[in-house]
């Protein structure tokens, strides 16, 4: 079972978890006050926007308000390093991203380890995408690969920061296409897209959402999903083009260490219920996000699988 089609399995879990219950009363009365939802990125970014998509549904389900708080810094590391310092009662939850929380501790001392992040649910992923300007000479991914093969290092890929998810994706891309490209780090995925639009760099190793946002100004050459993305019907998947690459930024929700198990389960259930809402799904897919369900029970296996997928590329980044 891949992590991408676990919805049926997860829905079965809701029924099971509702019955298994030492602290069932506590879980039922949860949440008893407003939830602080901490976003480790700037307002207006993808983590913030998806959290704001969730907000009204969360409030409708629980009857409690959700306060979205921004604690940006160091590509999220600042907030994640502080996660376990918050009160472990489930009323403080934090947005997390894989591969960020796998990659950052592997590369540098960022004040936390991957195992320190107590994820309760992953609710969507933003698929990787290769985006070029609309008037770029690259009509297809093959054009880009051909150019990169003919002129090693000449093709420039912009992305968010050094040793980040985009950097990792560009390493994976170089590996599977057997090309050499130059990775240019920017302060976030938006500035990288600006540089693509301005013609300063050849392509962005970015996300489907950026391709959707820039609309007609850009062409998305490939997306890292199983099926084509609804919001970008003209963009082929890597699989169609013969490359086995599915992935992106998987966004989840984590709680401080020591949060009672039944409350973690309740949060996982709430988030899964939000994911099942058609209105929520419609909002997400229109913007280019892929909704997935990775409930509490599946998280260890999911993290293990992702770690294995990133392993070789991380090793190469380290030796670079």
């Amino acid at each position, binding site marked *: 079972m891949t992590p991408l089609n676990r919805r049926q399995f997860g829905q079965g879990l809701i029924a099971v978890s509702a019955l298994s219950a030492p602290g069932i009363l506590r879980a039922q009365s949860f949440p008893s006050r407003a939830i602080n939802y901490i976003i480790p990125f700037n307002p207006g970014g993808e983590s913030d926007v998806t959290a704001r998509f969730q907000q009204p549904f969360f409030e409708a389900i629980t009857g409690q308000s959700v*306060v979205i*708080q921004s604690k940006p810094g160091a590509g999220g590391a600042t907030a994640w390093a502080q996660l376990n310092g918050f009160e472990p009662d489930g009323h403080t939850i934090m947005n997390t991203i894989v591969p960020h929380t796998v990659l950052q501790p592997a590369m540098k001392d960022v004040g936390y380890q991957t195992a320190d992040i107590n994820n309760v649910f992953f609710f969507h992923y933003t698929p990787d995408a290769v985006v070029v300007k609309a008037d770029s000479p690259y009509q297809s991914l093959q054009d880009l690969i051909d150019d990169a093969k003919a002129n090693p290092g000449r093709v420039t890929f912009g992305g968010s920061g*050094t040793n980040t998810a985009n950097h990792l994706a560009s390493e994976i891309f170089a590996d599977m296409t057997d090309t050499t490209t130059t990775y240019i780090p920017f302060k976030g995925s938006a500035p990288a897209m600006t540089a693509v639009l301005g013609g300063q760099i050849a392509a962005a190793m970015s996300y489907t959402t950026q391709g959707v946002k820039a609309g007609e100004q850009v062409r998305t050459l490939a997306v890292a999903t199983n099926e084509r993305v609804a919001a970008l019907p003209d963009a082929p998947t890597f699989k169609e083009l013969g490359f086995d690459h599915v992935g992106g930024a998987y966004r989840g929700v984590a709680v401080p260490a020591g949060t009672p198990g039944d409350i973690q389960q309740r949060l996982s259930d709430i988030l899964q219920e939000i994911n099942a809402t058609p209105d929520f799904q419609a909002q997400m897919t229109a913007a280019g996000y892929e909704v997935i369900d990775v409930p509490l029970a599946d998280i260890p296996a999911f993290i293990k699988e992702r770690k294995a997928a990133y392993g070789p590329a991380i090793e190469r980044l380290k030796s670079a």
Partner: protein
Amino acid sequence: MNRFLHRDIAAAAGLLALGGYALWEAQSMSVFGAIFPQLAGAGMVLGAILLALRALIWSPALPTNTGTVLRPLLMLAALAAWAILLPVTGFVATSVVGAGVCMIIAQQHAVPFRTLALQGAGLTALVLLVALLFGRLLNVPLP
């Protein structure tokens, strides 16, 4: 004034240490990550040398400081305590006490108790207003 005791010499010494530290740390950074720390460090070291030379050769006039140093130092201590205690004792309590202490430090003359009480009440009202505005209206979770 003895030019070896010129105040710029002390500043130069501090700068030299800081710049040296930046350069030292930059050695263990990646090529691209090290450029600006090295630039800043080198600038500080160079600046420190020029500053010291200038102090020794010309001994330029320094800005004259007016007023006492004691009051600002007390004020600084109060601000530091205020900042450190903020997450421990909560915004309202710390700020009422902090503002009160600052108010007393800032009094240049003996003032009647009535004035003091009035000023204190005004500041307390300000703290409560700010707490209300941010904590309740704008949903900023105050400690």
